């Protein structure tokens, strides 16, 4: 066989490409290797390795940081599906450490306590791909301009209340539809308004979609929530506290995986939603004080 030409790692295409492979799937938060195995057994496309799920971060307070590398490594060793981990917004050294561990994806996450209130990590400097949260199109495009290879709605993590995830997914979709309706000579003004680069605004206006995969996150707790987000146009779901804070994690996780695949088949959704045990208790986001909201971090 003849010699193959050019081989290049860490390109935008392979960073965005892994996210393409996760589409239609569920990424689950896990805090132990055992939970990671349960997630894999349930059919998760990837796991997010962390020390505390968002519901516990919310309840216990304090500064939430990157997880202990020992835990991250143990989870990477326990499963053969991709493993993601979170770094604090703007904490590029936590990101360097996670990359050194060989993690598959970094979530620069508002769930952890931000390390920088002005700047996000310059994600172009890394070979490992990043996913970032967004509440609307402008935020999504700012993160993509910084090098994010995947976007997720922020929702309101650790609440089990899907309302913010819905708001953010609708806001992104509406933002895209609006750009599609604009004339070419109106895009510069739209870019200014969105706080986004004109180049990306043009791309979205012409393609009618984000240039990267867009998952939903932040409050998804039931199969119906997962299917709702899919019907609203997301590419897949992150489920954080919703699984391992429920009564029967394996059963619920399997049901959420099925609901993400068969999101538009109500008969199947009815079947998989049956008898799942107790869902996570949840907190209504409308009862949170402004300083308790995570989604406003790193906009």
């Amino acid at each position, binding site marked *: *066989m003849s010699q*193959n030409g050019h*081989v290049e790692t860490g390109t935008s295409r392979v960073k965005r490409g892994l996210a393409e492979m996760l589409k239609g*799937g569920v990424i689950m938060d896990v805090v132990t290797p055992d939970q990671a195995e349960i997630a894999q*057994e349930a059919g998760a496309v990837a796991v997010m390795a962390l020390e505390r799920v968002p519901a516990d971060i919310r309840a216990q307070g304090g500064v939430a940081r990157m997880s202990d590398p020992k835990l991250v490594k143990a989870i990477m060793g326990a499963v053969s599906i*991709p493993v993601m981990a979170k770094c604090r917004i703007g904490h590029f050294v936590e990101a360097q450490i996670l990359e050194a561990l060989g993690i598959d994806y970094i979530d620069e996450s508002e769930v952890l306590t931000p390390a920088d209130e002005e700047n996000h990590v310059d994600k172009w400097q890394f070979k490992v791909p990043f996913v970032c949260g967004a509440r609307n199109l402008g935020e999504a495009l700012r993160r993509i301009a910084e090098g994010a290879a995947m976007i997720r709605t922020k929702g309101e993590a650790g609440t089990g209340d899907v309302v913010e995830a819905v708001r953010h997914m609708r806001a992104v979709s509406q933002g895209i539809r609006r750009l599609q309706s604009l004339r070419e000579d109106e895009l510069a003004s739209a870019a200014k308004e969105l706080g986004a680069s004109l180049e990306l605004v043009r791309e979205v206006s012409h393609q009618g979609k984000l240039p990267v995969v867009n998952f939903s996150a932040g409050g998804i707790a039931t199969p119906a929530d997962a299917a709702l987000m899919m019907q609203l146009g997301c590419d897949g779901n992150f489920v954080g506290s919703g699984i391992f804070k429920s009564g029967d994690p394996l059963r619920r996780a399997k049901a959420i995986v099925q609901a993400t*695949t068969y999101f538009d088949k109500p008969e199947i959704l009815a079947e998989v939603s049956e008898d799942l045990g107790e869902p996570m208790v949840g907190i209504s986001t409308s009862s949170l004080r402004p300083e308790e909201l995570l989604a406003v971090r790193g906009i």
Partner: protein
Amino acid sequence: MTKATVGVLALQGDFREHAAILEECGARVVRVRLPEDLDGLQGLVVPGGESTTMSKLLTSSVLVEPLLEAIEHGLACLTTCAGTILAAREIRDGIPDQVSLDILDIVVRRNAYGRQLQSAEVSLEIPAVGTAPVPVAFIRAPSIEEVGAGVEVLASYQEQAAAVRQGAHIGLTFHPELTGDTRLHRLFLSAL
């Protein structure tokens, strides 16, 4: 020539990208998630995605038996990455009970090149589709460690088979669908 009707297994993964390329090549595309979706197909693309997830969903959707039956009756498969893992006779470094459809007489190893940091864009020499190299992406890719006697190797990467053909079936360990090169899809469609 009448339009070929080709299914794309749409349980999880990048099935949209395959559907777009197949449509560009003039095929009629059906998304397959349930046994009844297999009716009337001449070809089936098993896309990239997470092979363990697709394996679980194949089992829970009761698709394995009808799929194997359709293949016995002449359904040809184009498989990429995770799809090729599912299609293999034997899977190394798989999970317990991982579905092995045994469509291709090959032995694959999951994540053979390492984790995401080893994922790469490659210009791959594939003489069966022409002299110009095909731009493809290997993403947490499997390798094909053994091929049976009836399997033709179409391309290799790092000294292991990366594209194989067995009858009308084609198995790829990489993603041509991410780079927009349509030649491998056309090769598949031409044999239907």
